[in-house]
């Protein structure tokens, strides 16, 4: 027998400690929320270049805006933001000028930044100037509400701020409540600005200069973000959660396991199938809400052959296996649109309910009429980042298209390249999705089908008639004319069919039974201020 080495004793006791401390740290649990995500923020600055979606969540909780939205309770008891009600946040009140061309905001006098300094109108102006100047996504988003030039923003006095309007736009006020127009601590930021970097982009990337209900305790990019409550927050009722820990867990199966075993409190990032099963099993709360003004679609390039031929696109529309896609890829977690170009809960959804019926015989006939009786070969692309839903959809679509003669090779495109390919607008046929923050149909159409050819106009669709209708709808005040405009551009889209709307996604979220207060927001991120653990 081997003589037991002298290390064994201490090793055994260490082992015992290891096993014993397993059930540790239950204290503080009820005031701490553990959120698990697939990936985390890549910046703390929403105006930063390439800010990703998780960065919106960080910004929303670390920073305040002038106003926020109210809450409404739905029939099933769940809560969501009310896009018709704007509530004070940093602004106590606001008045629209009699001529309608400016809005004056009175700021709260007791609002403080996280470093203790008061929030003034100068900070608001600096922040808004920044948003419209840095370019990229923030500037675009401001433009959607006709907020375009820094001349529009005026500091009347320390607690009065005025926005002058370029034109009357019903989206201006709602646009001030979206994540982009945050109020940054201008003095603090300016201390870290340089001649080359007047907006302190470098410093604000990693640091928190906000006045929001939560402060940044620590951020380890790629690992976790920890938020701690800002106890001096006055822009609303003090949140119940003292601490929020957001951890990145790349494996979807593990995220589900963590939730089921109670080692994590809440998560958005699960495949639809898991949500369907968790909802049924009943151990966790699963809350769902259709993502507003959003849908997933089959897009086609209308500029290049063969999809430039209208009949080919119509054939594809009749070959899309809507029900199969909905059940196998989405497990029913969504709203099946079957071609309806306007999502549910958005004005105009009832104009053209389920307009496209799957009909392979008709599709084959259309192909023949288009001159492609023998079919053709092409590539079907989708974003690999959303493979969980897109891959089964692509496989089913591929099979269906093969039956009408369109032979496709599937191209799974990595995330960084996807953006690039969308911009190039050369992909013949592809799966994509779009969701708009502001719940107006013309907002969606403006980004996706208007001749201004934003990146989201993935089909390269150009039609002056469409542009006329969209532009009219954007600024129309008469409700009857507005209805005509909306019906008009929806009908036009169905006639020209540059894309086939398949489904409206559901925003599912799973949480432990003791987590209360969740509210659906248009930006689809978590607002920690409303949550609590009982």
């Amino acid at each position, binding site marked *: 027998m081997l003589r037991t080495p002298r290390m064994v004793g201490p090793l055994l006791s260490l082992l015992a400690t290891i096993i014993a401390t397993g059930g540790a740290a239950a204290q503080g649990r009820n005031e701490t929320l553990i959120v698990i995500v697939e990936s985390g923020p890549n910046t703390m600055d929403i105006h930063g270049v390439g800010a990703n979606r998780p960065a919106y969540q960080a910004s929303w909780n670390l920073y305040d805006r002038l106003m926020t939205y109210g809450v409404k309770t739905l029939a099933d008891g769940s809560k969501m933001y009310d896009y018709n009600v704007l509530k004070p946040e940093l602004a106590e009140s606001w008045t629209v000028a009699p001529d309608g061309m400016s809005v004056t905001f009175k700021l709260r006098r007791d609002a403080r930044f996280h470093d203790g300094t008061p929030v003034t109108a100068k900070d608001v102006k600096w922040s808004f100037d920044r948003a419209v100047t840095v370019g990229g996504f923030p500037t675009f988003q401001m433009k959607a509400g006709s907020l375009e030039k820094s001349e529009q923003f005026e500091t009347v006095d320390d607690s009065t701020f005025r926005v002058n309007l370029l034109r009357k736009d019903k989206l201006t006020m709602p646009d001030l409540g979206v994540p982009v127009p945050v109020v940054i601590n201008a003095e603090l930021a300016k201390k870290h600005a340089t001649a080359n970097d007047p907006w302190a982009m470098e410093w604000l990337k990693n640091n928190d200069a906000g006045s929001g209900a939560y402060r940044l305790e620590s951020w380890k990019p790629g690992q976790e973000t920890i938020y701690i409550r800002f106890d001096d927050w006055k822009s609303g009722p003090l949140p119940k959660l003292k601490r929020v820990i957001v951890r990145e867990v790349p494996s*979807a*199966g593990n995220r589900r396991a963590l939730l089921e075993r109670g080692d994590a409190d809440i998560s958005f990032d699960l495949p639809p199938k898991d949500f369907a099963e968790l909802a049924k099993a009943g151990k966790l709360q699963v809350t769902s809400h259709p993502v507003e003004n959003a849908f997933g679609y089959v897009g086609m390039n209308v500029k290049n052959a063969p999809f430039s031929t209208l009949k080919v696109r119509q054939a594809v529309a009749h070959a899309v296996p809507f029900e199969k896609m909905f059940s*196998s*890829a989405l497990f029913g977690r969504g709203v099946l649109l079957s071609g309806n170009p306007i999502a549910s809960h958005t004005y105009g959804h009832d104009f053209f309910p389920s307009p496209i019926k799957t009909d392979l015989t008709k599709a084959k006939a259309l192909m023949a009429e288009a001159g492609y009786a023998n079919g053709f070969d092409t590539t079907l692309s989708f974003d690999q980042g959303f493979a969980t839903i897109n891959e089964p959809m692509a496989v089913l679509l591929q099979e269906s298209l093969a039956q009408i003669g369109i032979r496709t090779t599937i191209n*799974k495109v990595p995330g960084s390249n996807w953006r690039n390919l969308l911009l190039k607008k050369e992909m013949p046929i592809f799966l994509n999705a779009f969701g708009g923050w502001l719940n107006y149909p013309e907002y969606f159409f403006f980004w996706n089908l208007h001749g201004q050819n934003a990146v989201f106009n993935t089909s390269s669709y150009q039609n002056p008639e469409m542009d006329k209708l969209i532009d009219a709808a954007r600024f129309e005040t008469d409700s009857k004319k507005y209805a005509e405009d909306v019906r008009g551009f929806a009908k036009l889209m169905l006639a020209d069919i540059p894309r086939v709307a398949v489904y409206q996604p559901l925003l599912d979220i799973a949480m432990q039974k003791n987590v209360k207060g969740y509210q659906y927001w248009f930006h689809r991120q978590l607002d920690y201020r409303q949550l609590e653990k009982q």
Partner: protein
Amino acid sequence: MSALARHAWYVFGDNPVTAGALGLFIALVVLAVVGPMIAPYDPLASDTTMALQAPSRMHWFGTDQVGRDILSRVLAATRLDLMISVAAVALSFVVGSTAGAAAGFFGGWTDRLVTRVTDTIMAFPLFVLAMGIVAALGNTLANIVLATAVINVPFYARMARAEANVRREAGFVEAARLAGNGSARVLAVHVFPNCLPPMVVQASLNLGWAILNAAGLSFIGLGVRPPTPEWGIMVAEGAAFIVSGEWWIALFPGVALMLAVFCFNLLGDGLRDLIDPRRRT
């Protein structure tokens, strides 16, 4: 029986595990050839009404998310996976051993060049290099084979180089030269065949590694394209279903993959015994 056959019989008889591996190998090859023909369903045919069914009489291995029969897909994948591994290993074997033998035999610049290249390749953690190559060139079947081949070249090159180097001054090589054979001919006909045995062992081990490599690439999204049935990608996709209880989607391709790799590994060991009794393990 010839001497080799008798020796083989002795080795295998003494080593039932290796004999088992040989049997398994033959079974795999047979399945690769006839698999697609005996598959009960079309491996690409979906049937969403029968999605995610547990193994049953109709579907022995169950069905996947879009209702495809897993047994048929596993059978179809046998051919593809064996082809990937054989192609990759053959490629790296041919390129590596030729380059290595030439380097060992001729020395000088050939040697320096080949050594530089293999050192560069070996300095990368192998999987990472394969990842980089496939990401850069695109995840087609050809590129996956190429990437796997590239990362395996150094093994063969080094072995061949060492063996050729040793035999460079050997008597029979002198004799061949004196008989009037050119250098190239000496290398090809006399030296090279003697380098082969240890490399054949390595080849067998690499066959298994090639399949695992493809599986790893699939897990991070760089594997074969859908809807191609390949063990690695089926395991990677099925992994997401383990926690929700649909264990069969990952298990069956996983077992098939494991058996194949297992078989190649054990076979490699057995070949080692066969070829060089001094190095019997």
